[in-house]
Structure formats: structure tokens, C-alpha cells
């Protein structure tokens, strides 16, 4: 019989071998041909943790780090591993109550239901807590750990508007910079130098290749860290900023709205750029960043606005220096040309006189010194009505070209973001039907431009740059904060700041004439109160009329200057918004103090009272004060609301505790109640037992159950 079926053993063998081959083929496909499984395995088990390199530092002209990095410490929790820790002790260490602890843990669990995703329990813990926690952290091991995170520090607490701030990138940012390897959670420069030099400051991200398990827990380095990539630290930036001067400027501008811009005319490097009111830049780092931002943002004083580049004003009388240059270069006046002022400018007929302060006869130098409006109205009238131009369109455009050459009416290209272009009108502007229309305007239409009022608009930076231009006698460098980048300027960010700009050829003699007038301003003119001993300052005051929604507001106080005249090292301008009075009243003293501080490094004892007075004068415009009061009352009412709510809640809580007795009380109450209850039940039972004992027993049982 066995022989009968022996052939079948061969079939069995064949089946075995066939199965073996099928399996081997599938294995070959899985392991050798298809590459997707290796990829999926990597996705499963390999976690590429980005390593953030430290951001580049920023140094001032004395090589002090004015923007630095420091470490802050975050307490991280892994909720799934937090079972069985001594919560009470932990809460004491963290100075929180158990409710708060529970609240945070619930939040952490909401983020990730598995509970293995690390969550920041508290960010930027205080040094005291850090010390306490560090000692006891072993008690809470694997649930809690401390992680360091680099943040920015500002050792001099100044220059917030220059540096700007870093912030977590949001989805818009990620969309905008898709090619630049940001991931959500990264920090990037949002404003100021942090933003414009983001590419060099940020460095290159490194990668730590880690192994994780199916719950996402990190097991350790993958392949002993051989695949890790170290990041490249951000490049440091070197500037010509003088942080002492910056601080000093910010101090002088306390309780004032406005700005100061100081430029080294020889290089175009910005020495100081004050925008007031400002804020302590460290407010926008660390744990409270968002809270502080939410306070700063709606502040009516607009501390986040960089007024030095992002505010524009009519330049006022500071504009006259440029008109002098144009008129002299065009040859429509000489330094000796005189105009008289009998009290007002009547060049446009009697109907619209333009007042001047000191009646008399002026030639160029004295006209600048005393800031004679009538003189410059005549000057510009000559420039515009110059017979060498066929019509007013071409003469106005030629004038516009001069202004453009002086750096007005367009963005200069400074490396501080949010720069405004200002405005210098062209013929096309006036020709537009929205304005006057072709042929419906002449010099008299815009005569107030001759004294820097009306349509013209400039930023403080442009005015400071114009001073540098005049100081240099005909050239300038585009103003900039950063002079050089550590390791070289590979991206060519600084190229445009290395090019000397010589827009038009104006002979030195013309500049000398203007310098004469500007020096006169300090020696005996509108700025005489701000003379600094030992320094020849050339300056020009400006008193700018301005309107807010058609209502005349107190004048802006303007002053621009450069010094020393012989070898200018600083070109500077200051504006104090709505200060009232004149350019010589506030802006000029502030500028003179800045110049003195910069050139002499200290302010002489004689001028200390002036310094005191400038610092202590409160010139916040009344409109702004109104707004602030409004904000405060709003805030207060909101706080009152919260307080009221809290009080109500407290009252409610006490009420509730009266309503809902504690367990002990319940027990006592029950003891009291149970006796009569029993009695009635007893009665009932007796009553009904006669009818249906079984049923009754049941119902009474149910009743007691409900009672409990």
C-alpha cells in the first residue's frame, strides 16, 4: 500500500518548494527591489531634530556687543510620564497651586493625546526657580526636564527701533520664504536690523538625527550621531553706532515724540537713530514677549513705530539750505543778492502774504541765519520762473531733480526697514486734474514749499542725509547701520553702501556760502542758544506748522546740523513733534547736546542745566495725551470688570459652599434626618404590608436608594 502512493511524496515536495519560491520572490521584491519600505522605516523611526545656531551679534563702533545672546530655560513636561510624581511638592517648587498644575497638564494633553509630545510647562523660568528645580529635578525625572533656548539680550537697553525684534515665524512668513528652510517654531527677525540682515544673522541650521520609538519617544542618537550636522553660527555685524550716544539721545527724548538721526557724513554710517517714545528692547524677548507686544502695539504713542525712517514731515526752514544751493547753482542769485522783507512776502500779490519774523533787508548769509521766509520765497520764485526754461512744468521738474539729487522724494535705501520715501511734487502732480490741472497753477500756488511747508514731505533720515551732503560739499553715502559683516559680505548686502554718490557738480564755493549762513545760525541766528564752545557747528532751525484733520496743531521743532565745520564728523537732525514754539527751542539744544556728547564725549558742566531741562521737559502732544487717557480709562474699566467678576465669583463661591455642605455636614444632617424618615417608612410599611408585603418592600428599598 505505501508503494501505491509513493509518487505523491513528490507532489508534496513540489508544493513545499513552490511555497518556498513564492515567499523568496516576495521577499526579494520587498527587500531588494522596492525602496519605499526603507524610506517608510526612516519616516517611522528617524527624527531629525533641528539644532538652532546662535544668531549673530551686533557690535557698536567701540566694539561693544550691543545685541547679544543669552540662554533662557524652559521647563518641559512629558504628560504621559507624569504619573505618580509628588505634585504637592512640585507645585511648591514652582510656586503654583494644584489647580494651575492640573490646568497646564490638561492643556499639554490637549496638544497631543498620546501624552508623549513634550510640552512647555513654563517658559523662561526665573533664576530662583531654576536653582530650586535643578536641585530637585531627579524627583520628577522623565516627566520634567529643563531645556535651554537662546534668546536676544540688549546689554544697553537702547536702540529698540534699530534692532527690531525676532519672533516665531507664522504661516504667512513660511509661505513667503518657502525656500529658506524655516519650519514652524523657528524664530526670525521681524523688524529692524534683525529683519534686514536675517540671512546673515541666522546662520545655518544643524540637524541632530535621533532614533524614536512608535510613541515618538527619543531613544538616543542614530548611528552614534555620525549623521548629525552641526549648525553654522550666525555672522556678527559691525556698525558705527555709538551706543552711549544712542542712550543719551533716547534720554534727551524722554516724554517727547520725535526722532534724532545722526550720521557720520564721511561714511554714511548711522551713529545714532532715536525714535521716541521707544521701549526697552528686552520686553520683546523671553516669556512675556506676547504680553508686552500686546501692550505696546495699541499704545497711542506708537512706540513700535520707527519715526526716524517711517514718519515724514514738512521739512520747514531746514529746507531753505537746499533752496540756497539750487538758486546759487542755477545762477538766479549770488551770495550778495538782497531781498527786503517789510513784514511779509508780497511777491504773489497782496492777497496772500507770507509772514516773516524780522523785517529788514537780507542777503543769503543773513537770510539763512535768521531764516527769512520772504527771502527764500523770492529765491524760489526766481528758480521756478527762470527764463531758461520754456515753461513752469520743466522748471519745476528741474527743481524736483535737484531735490532728488539731494536724496529727497525717494527712499534712500537705508538698511532699517519700513523707510518712507517722503514727497517732492512734480509738474505732473500739479497737472493732475485731482490737484489743479494743467495751466491752473503757478509758483504762487505752491510758494510755501520755498520754506519747506506745503506739499513737500521728508523723513528725518533724509534731512540728516541732506546735512551729510552739505557737510561733504556735494556727495554722500547711502545711510546705513551695518558697516561690515563677519566673514565677508557674501550676499552683497552692503554693496550699495560702499558707493559714493555725487549727484551733481556744485562748486565748493556755493557750499561755503551755505555753511557761512548755517554757522551764523549758531553764532547769532535762530540757533544761538545752542552754541557749543570749541565746536564750530553749522545748523539750521525749522519750525514746522502742521495740521491734524484740518485742525492746526502745535508746531514741530526741527533742527539739523553738522559739525565741526572744518572737518565734519557728524551730520544730525532732530525733530520734536508738536512741541510748540520754534526749532531753536527744543530741537536745536538737543542736537547741540548730542554733538557735544559725540565730539567731546561729555557735556560741559555749564550746559548741564540745559541738559536737565531738555530731559525733564514733557512735550507729549495734547492729542496724544487725550488718547492715552482714553486708553487708560478703557483699560481700567476692563480691569474693573475683571475685578468685579472675580469678586462676584468669590461671592458665588462662598454662597456655593453654603449651599453645598461638606461631606461631614452631610453625614451629620443625615444622622439627624434618618430617624424621622425611618419612622415614616416604618409606618408606611405597616400600612401597606397588609395589602402587598412583597411590593412594599421593594418600593421602600428603591426609596432609600434614591435618598442615598
Amino acid at each position, binding site marked *: 500500500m505505501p508503494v501505491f502512493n509513493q509518487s505523491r511524496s513528490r507532489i508534496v515536495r513540489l508544493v513545499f518548494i513552490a511555497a518556498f519560491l513564492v515567499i523568496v520572490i516576495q521577499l526579494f521584491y520587498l*527587500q531588494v527591489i522596492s525602496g519605499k519600505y526603507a524610506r517608510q522605516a526612516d519616516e517611522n523611526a528617524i527624527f531629525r531634530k533641528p539644532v538652532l545656531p546662535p544668531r549673530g551679534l551686533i557690535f557698536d563702533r567701540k566694539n561693544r556687543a550691543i545685541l547679544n545672546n543669552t540662554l533662557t530655560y524652559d521647563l518641559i513636561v512629558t504628560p504621559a510620564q507624569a504619573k505618580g510624581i509628588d505634585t504637592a511638592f512640585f507645585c511648591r517648587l514652582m510656586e503654583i497651586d494644584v489647580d494651575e498644575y492640573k490646568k497646564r497638564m490638561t492643556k499639554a494633553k490637549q496638544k497631543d493625546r498620546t501624552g508623549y509630545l513634550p510640552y512647555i510647562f513654563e517658559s523662561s523660568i526665573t533664576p530662583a526657580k531654576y536653582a530650586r528645580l535643578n536641585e530637585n529635578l531627579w524627583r520628577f525625572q522623565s516627566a520634567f526636564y529643563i531645556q535651554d533656548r537662546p534668546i536676544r539680550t540688549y546689554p544697553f537697553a537702547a536702540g529698540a527701533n534699530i534692532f527690531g525684534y525676532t519672533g516665531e515665524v507664522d504661516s504667512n512668513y513660511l509661505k513667503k520664504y518657502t525656500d529658506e528652510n524655516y519650519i514652524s517654531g523657528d524664530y526670525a527677525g521681524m523688524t529692524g536690523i534683525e529683519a534686514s540682515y536675517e540671512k546673515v544673522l541666522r546662520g545655518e541650521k544643524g540637524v541632530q538625527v535621533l532614533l524614536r520609538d512608535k510613541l515618538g519617544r527619543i531613544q538616543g542618537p542614530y548611528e552614534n550621531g555620525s549623521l548629525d550636522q552641526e549648525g553654522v553660527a550666525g555672522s556678527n555685524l559691525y556698525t558705527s553706532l555709538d551706543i552711549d550716544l544712542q542712550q543719551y539721545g533716547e534720554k534727551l527724548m524722554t516724554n517727547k515724540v520725535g526722532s534724532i538721526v545722526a550720521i557720520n557724513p564721511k561714511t554714511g554710517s548711522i551713529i545714532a537713530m532715536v525714535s521716541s517714545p521707544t521701549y526697552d528692547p528686552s520686553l520683546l524677548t523671553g516669556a512675556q514677549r506676547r504680553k508686552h507686544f500686546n501692550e505696546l502695539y495699541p499704545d497711542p504713542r506708537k512706540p513700535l513705530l520707527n519715526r526716524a525712517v517711517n514718519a515724514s514731515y514738512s521739512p520747514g526752514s531746514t529746507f531753505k539750505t537746499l533752496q540756497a544751493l539750487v538758486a546759487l547753482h542755477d545762477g538766479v542769485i549770488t551770495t550778495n543778492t538782497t531781498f527786503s522783507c517789510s513784514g511779509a512776502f508780497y511777491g504773489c500779490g497782496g492777497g496772500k502774504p507770507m509772514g516773516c519774523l524780522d523785517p529788514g533787508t537780507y542777503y543769503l548769509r543773513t537770510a539763512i541765519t535768521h531764516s527769512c521766509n520772504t527771502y527764500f520765497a523770492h529765491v524760489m520764485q526766481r528758480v521756478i520762473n527762470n527764463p531758461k526754461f520754456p515753461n513752469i512744468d520743466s522748471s519745476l521738474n528741474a527743481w524736483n531733480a535737484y531735490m532728488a539729487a539731494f536724496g529727497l522724494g525717494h527712499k534712500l535705501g537705508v538698511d532699517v526697514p519700513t523707510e518712507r520715501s517722503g514727497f517732492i511734487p512734480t509738474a505732473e502732480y500739479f497737472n493732475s486734474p485731482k490737484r489743479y490741472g494743467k495751466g491752473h497753477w503757478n509758483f504762487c500756488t505752491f510758494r510755501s514749499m520755498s520754506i519747506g511747508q506745503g506739499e513737500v514731505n521728508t523723513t528725518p533720515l533724509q534731512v540728516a542725509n541732506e546735512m551729510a551732503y552739505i557737510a561733504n560739499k556735494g556727495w554722500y553715502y547711502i545711510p546705513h547701520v551695518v558697516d561690515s559683516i563677519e566673514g565677508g559680505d557674501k550676499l552683497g548686502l552692503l554693496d550699495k553702501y560702499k558707493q559714493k554718490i555725487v549727484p551733481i557738480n556744485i562748486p565748493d564755493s556755493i557750499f561755503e556760502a551755505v555753511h557761512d549762513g548755517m554757522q551764523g545760525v549758531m553764532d547769532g541766528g535762530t540757533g544761538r542758544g545752542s552754541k557749543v564752545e570749541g565746536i564750530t557747528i553749522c545748523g539750521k532751525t525749522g519750525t514746522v506748522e502742521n495740521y491734524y484733520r484740518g485742525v492746526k496743531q502745535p508746531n514741530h521743532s526741527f533742527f539739523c546740523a553738522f559739525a565741526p565745520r572744518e572737518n565734519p564728523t557728524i551730520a544730525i537732525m532732530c525733530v520734536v513733534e508738536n512741541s510748540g514754539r520754534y526749532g531753536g527751542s527744543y530741537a536745536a539744544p538737543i542736537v547741540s547736546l548730542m554733538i557735544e556728547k559725540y565730539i567731546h564725549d561729555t557735556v560741559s558742566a555749564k550746559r548741564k542745566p540745559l541738559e536737565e531741562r531738555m530731559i525733564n521737559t514733557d512735550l507729549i502732544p495734547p492729542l496724544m495725551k487725550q488718547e492715552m487717557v482714553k486708553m487708560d480709562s478703557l483699560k481700567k474699566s476692563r480691569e474693573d470688570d475683571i475685578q468685579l467678576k472675580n469678586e462676584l465669583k468669590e461671592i458665588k463661591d462662598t454662597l456655593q459652599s453654603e449651599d453645598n455642605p461638606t461631606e461631614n455636614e452631610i453625614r451629620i444632617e443625615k444622622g439627624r434626618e434618618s430617624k424621622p424618615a425611618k419612622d415614616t417608612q416604618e409606618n408606611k410599611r405597616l400600612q401597606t404590608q397588609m395589602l402587598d408585603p412583597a411590593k412594599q418592600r421593594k418600593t421602600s428599598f428603591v426609596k432609600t436608594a434614591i435618598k442615598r
Partner: protein
Amino acid sequence: MNQRAPDIAKGTDWLLIWIYLALCVIGLICIFSVEYRTGDNIMQGLLGFKKEYSKQFFFLGASIVVAIFILITDSKFFTATANLSYLFGVFLILVTFVVGKEVGGSKSWIPLGFMNLQPVEVCKIFTSLAVAKYMSRPEMNFSKPRAQIIAAAIAFAPAVLSVLQKEPGAALVYFSFAIAFFREGLPGVYLTVFLSLILLIIASIVVKQNTLFVILTILAIGFVYLVRKKIKRNPRIVVTTILIWGLCVGVQMFLVPALFEKILKSHQVVRILSTFGIDDYKFKNKERAAEIQREYAKQGTARDKGVKGESYNVKQSKIAIGSGGFWGKGFLQGTQTSGDFVPAQNTDFIFSTVGESFGFWGSVLVLLLYFGLMLRIVFLAERQRSTFSRVYAYCVGGILFFHVVLNVCMTIGLAPSPGITLPFLSYGGSSLLTFTILLFILIKLDADRQMVLR
């Protein structure tokens, strides 16, 4: 033969023993690599009896002791006690209904303190012996239906009990006795019918119900048309055809839907469907459909990622094996293994460890060991003088074949995962001891192949 000092070495097939030991050691290594984490103390772990590799180590020791005992036992003992042991095995399974411990949803384990015993697993030995005993009766004629039914009853009784214990995977293995039956002369028609049935069931799953109905009908009419001349002589053909057609349609229209809608557990349905890559099976019962959807979600299928339905376990196993490449990632270097990505990696999915750590060559080597073992067993079977030994050998070979093929196919995504172990490699005392005893009884019988056993 010297009765007092039996010579173990004499006649023993050492090749089987070496393959056996090799597989057991590979199993230990794999279990170790699943559990080991950098920094563990190996010696302490190995002797501590806390880690599973340590337990497996001791199980292996115990198995070897048992193996030696078997080798010094008289072969006649096995024939003599075959029926008794079978009854004992069935009794054990029945006992499980009373004292059983629930492990992973099936109540088929008896807790013994140091280990859990799964009687269905152990009963394979007794069933093999009993089948061999019955088949080797001198008056045996396997072409008679009576003999066939009795043999089938012996083989499938534990399986039926196992199904009642909700452990259908273990029951499936009892089909492996078909290989022994086939060798002993089971008429080919059974296999044809059986294979046709499987084909029909698969077709009913894969092909749309109505389409299949049309196909079956066309086949039936076509067949009648082809044999139309014979019908005149033998009209019964038509009746038979109609009967077969009716049977097929019954299976296709009612049995398979009934299986899917009512009888099978939802996770089994999902496993079966995902093996065939079907994710749009229409369930008539709304509740059932929702249940299946939940099960899909539970098993973490990658349907939403565009991959055809595949259960989480199988997906992870395939990733682990596939990522091994040709040469493997190296011992203890498997990222999927150390990251616990593959569920039940110690037991049912142990092959994924081999695939990941040792790659294609390692996997093929292990498979060669297995198939070498099986082919060797077939070879041994054919050299037996006694039917008992031969049938028993085929039973062992068949059981091994079913276990290995089903398990490996499951880990590489070729078969649904029924939850059966990989012999000698999977962690578990029950499994290791069972296969050791199975194999060593065979080795002992083979060593005594000169004797005629009944």
C-alpha cells in the same frame, strides 16, 4: 538492542537536530534583539527569568531536556499511548473551557504559573500520533469513506473545539493533516473539490456578486453545451451540473456573505479583505458596515494615504522587513525593532526581526533551514518501514509547513494574519515545547525505523 543503555546517537538523524538547534538559536537571538536596549545587562537579563529572551532561554533548556527524554524513550511507547494521549489532549482542551485564561481575546490558555499552556497547540502532537495510529491499522483502507470520515474526525475534533474557543488561527493549522491524508491515498477528488471551494470563496470575495453569478451561469451553460452529445446517453450530467452550479451559487451568494456579515469577527473580516487589497466590500447591514469601518480605523489601515487597505501590523512588518535591504541593518541595528513599531514582534511577527536585521540573505537562510527541515522530514518519512512512522512524519511536516508558510506569508503581506507562531523562532514555551516534542518523537521513530510499529 541494548535495553538498559539506549544509544541515543545510533540511527538518530543529526541533520534534523542541527537544523532544529540552529533555528532555536536564531529565535533566541531575534527575541533578544527585540527586547534588548542599549545598556541592559545581558547576563543578568538572560538569567533573570524576567525578560522574554531569558524565559525563552530556559524554555529551550527545558525543551532540550524533554527532547533527550524522548530520545531515550522506547518508540513503542508512542504507538501504545497514541490514543490515550489524544483523549488526554482533547480533555485538556475541554478543561480550558472551565479554567481557561483569556489572552488576547481567546480563552484557550491554561495558566501553569511559570508559563501559559495552550492545549490546542500541544494537542497537535497527540492528534498527529492518533492520526498515525489510526492510519496504520492493518485493516486500514483509506479509499473507503468510513475510514476517511474517522480520520478526518480525529484530525478536526480539536480544531472544532479551538474555533469554539475563538482561536480560529490555531484551528487552521489542523488542515495540515490533509497533507498526510493526501500521501496516504486520499482520493484526488477531495483535493480538487477543496481547492475549487477555496478558489470559489476567493472569487466571491474579489469579484462582484452579480458578476460572479453571471460567470458561473455561463460556465454551467457552456459546459452543458460542450457535452450536449453525451447528455443523450447520460442525462444525469445535466442534473449534476445543475447541482454543482447551485452549490457554487449558494456558496457565492449566501455562504460567503453570511461569513462576512455574521459569522466572522470584524477584525478577521478586515484582515481577510486587506490581504486581497479590497477596501470597498459592500455590507448589506449598515451596523456591520460601520463596525468594519471602526475596525479599519483601529487597525490603522493606510486607506486614506492611497495605499489599498492594509492592517497596521502587516504594514509595519512589511516596512521592517523591506527596510532590511539585501544585507540587513545588522544585529541590534534595526530601527523598527528597537522602536517597537511592529506589534507582537516577539511572537507572531518575529520574522520581521530577521528581515530587518539580516536582510534578504538572512531571511532566505532561515527559510532554507525551514524548507530543508521539511524536505528532510519528507525524505525520512519515505524511508520508514512502518506506516505509523510515515504518517506521523507527514503530519509533522505538514504542521511545520502550514505554520511556516502562513506565518511568513502573513509577515510579508501575502496572507491574512491568523495569529499563528513561527516554529522554533517565536517566543513562547507552549509553541517551542510542542514543536520540540513533535520533532523529537519523529527523530526517535526514525532512529527505530528498523522496527515495524503499529
